[in-house]
């Protein structure tokens, strides 16, 4: 348990923009143990997705790097499965075929056809989506599609599961349900998980550790909070648990006192529009000159 599984050292990320390089991350250091559930929390645009993409290998850090099991990460691979913010299912494949694409790619050699079929169905059942196996993503709700995205990632048996706001677009009930299933699944499989979230309760409930990021540009790890609550956790029982309330308090004070966003009114409007419209990427780009 104590051996470092994943390590980020001195990560700096500078994006080329028409106005010159934009330093999004500066000197990010992070050590994660095997089987740990880590949440990344921070204000919008601080660089959480960037950290996740560097671990995934989808982005290359401009300085420093990421080491997984003693090997440097410099390209994406299925052992670091990603659950994308907006499910990213192939719209022309059915739910089953979407998971199949991943399973066939990863277990082409190690599983025969029947084993693969069972494994796909098993993962769809894990997220309660087996009933919609033959539907296309366009025919199911956003929450259902997100569940399939999770099933696809789990089906790759990743050693690290990377999730970018996996429940961000869901209603409160679906979200609670999925959080519970995720806890169960993680308990069972003992995956290492890095999850980005905006939701303080979600972070405290699910995580072993919460990494709080400072505001960008040049964001870095602000605080690293260990959540020492016994598992399995029950959201109702925890609601007035003194420790839980304390942890929650810590995160809130970091976000809204220490890292309070000093934004102009207009950019805050843009940010709220982004959470409603779900087009955060676009708004971030508009916001960037203001913060840079």
């Amino acid at each position, binding site marked *: 348990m104590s051996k470092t599984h994943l390590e980020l050292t001195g990560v700096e990320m500078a994006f080329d923009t028409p106005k010159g390089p934009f330093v999004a991350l500066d000197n990010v250091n992070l050590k994660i143990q095997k089987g740990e559930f880590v949440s990344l929390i921070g204000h919008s645009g601080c660089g959480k997705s960037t950290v996740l993409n560097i671990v*995934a*290998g*989808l982005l290359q850090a401009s300085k420093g790097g990421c080491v997984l099991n003693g090997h440097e990460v410099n*390209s*994406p*691979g*299925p052992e*670091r*499965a*990603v659950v*994308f913010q*907006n499910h*990213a299912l*192939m*719209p*022309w*494949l059915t739910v089953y075929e979407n998971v199949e*694409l*991943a399973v066939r*790619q*990863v277990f082409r050699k190690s599983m025969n056809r029947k084993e693969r079929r069972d494994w796909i169905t098993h993962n769809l059942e894990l997220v309660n989506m087996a009933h919609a196996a033959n539907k*296309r993503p366009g025919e199911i709700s956003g929450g259902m599609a997100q569940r399939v995205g999770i099933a696809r990632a789990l089906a*790759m048996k990743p050693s690290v599961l990377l999730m970018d706001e996996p429940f961000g677009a869901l209603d409160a009930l679906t979200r609670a349900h999925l959080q519970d299933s995720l806890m169960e699944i993680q308990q069972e499989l003992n995956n290492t998980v890095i999850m980005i979230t905006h939701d303080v309760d979600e972070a405290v409930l699910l995580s072993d550790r919460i990494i709080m990021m400072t505001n960008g540009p040049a964001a870095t790890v602000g605080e690293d909070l260990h959540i020492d609550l016994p598992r399995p956790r029950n959201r109702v029982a925890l609601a007035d648990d003194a420790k839980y309330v304390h942890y929650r308090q810590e995160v809130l004070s970091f976000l809204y006192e220490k890292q309070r966003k000093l934004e102009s009114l207009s950019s805050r409007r843009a940010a709220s529009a982004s959470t409603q419209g779900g087009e955060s990427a676009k708004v971030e780009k508009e916001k960037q000159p203001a913060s840079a």
Partner: protein
Amino acid sequence: MAARSRNFLARLSPNELVAAGKEALLPLIGILVFLGFWHLAAPQVQTSLGAFPGPAQVWEQAGQLWQEHANQRERASQFIAMQEQRNARILADNPDAEVRIRSYPGAPTFIDQIGTSLVTVLSGFALATLIAVPLGIVFGLNRYFQAAVNPLIQIFKPVSPLAWLPLVTMVVSATYVSDDPMFQKSFLTSMITVTLCSLWPTLINTSVGVAAVNPDLLNVSKVLKLSFWTHVRKVVLPSSVPMIFTGLRVSLGIAWMVLIAAEMLAQSPGLGKFVWDEFQNGSSQSLSRIMVAVLAIGFIGFLLDRVMLLIQKKVAWNE
């Protein structure tokens, strides 16, 4: 047939019937108004070959052309039957005799010309598709390649078939030399001209569609480490199928227009030649016969587009 359609009407509810009626009625009114206008306006237009033909004369010539085709077929089969009888007799006398059957030497009819044109346009279009789709995928996948060839595409795209035709003719007659040619040179010339003019919309649409694949899906492909071919087959192609088909439909429309022009200019067999021959012929029926050809060209163009649409509905996931 009539009974079945009545059955079908009976199954529709009154509301649906009204809707279906409206849907059929408006186009019908449009066509009738057009025919009426044509009928009234045509006699006013005097040409050296007499008044411009109205719908009635054109209809009559359409029947005439069909009749000529039927007669020609009749004569052709008699011609063949005669040869067969004669051959049978020769073989009865001498079983070792060599016998041959010559095909009927009559001139191609209007219907034959339609067939020739259809075969030519489909071959040219198929060749254009075989070239344009793979090339479009390559250009769409590689930004640098795209930047390098973009000026060429922009320059060749607007070239008229009339400009290509002499070049293609010369090149075909110089390079396609064989004692027993599989294709006629005129066929090759028309087909290649069609290909050269119609491949651009498919090429451009394919490359745009390929370049516009959702970046999230590209990331999925990277995380899965899909091989290049699987990536193209499972992610890039399906994602750009709607755009490719938009391009294919434009291409087929252009192919059909270009073919008629090319046939007229090069005198190669087909509907274009039919129009040109009638124009040269200059009889009192020529204008009506050309008008039949014009309507046939339009109708076939419409049908070709419909067929493409049907295929698109079968193939594309977003339909």
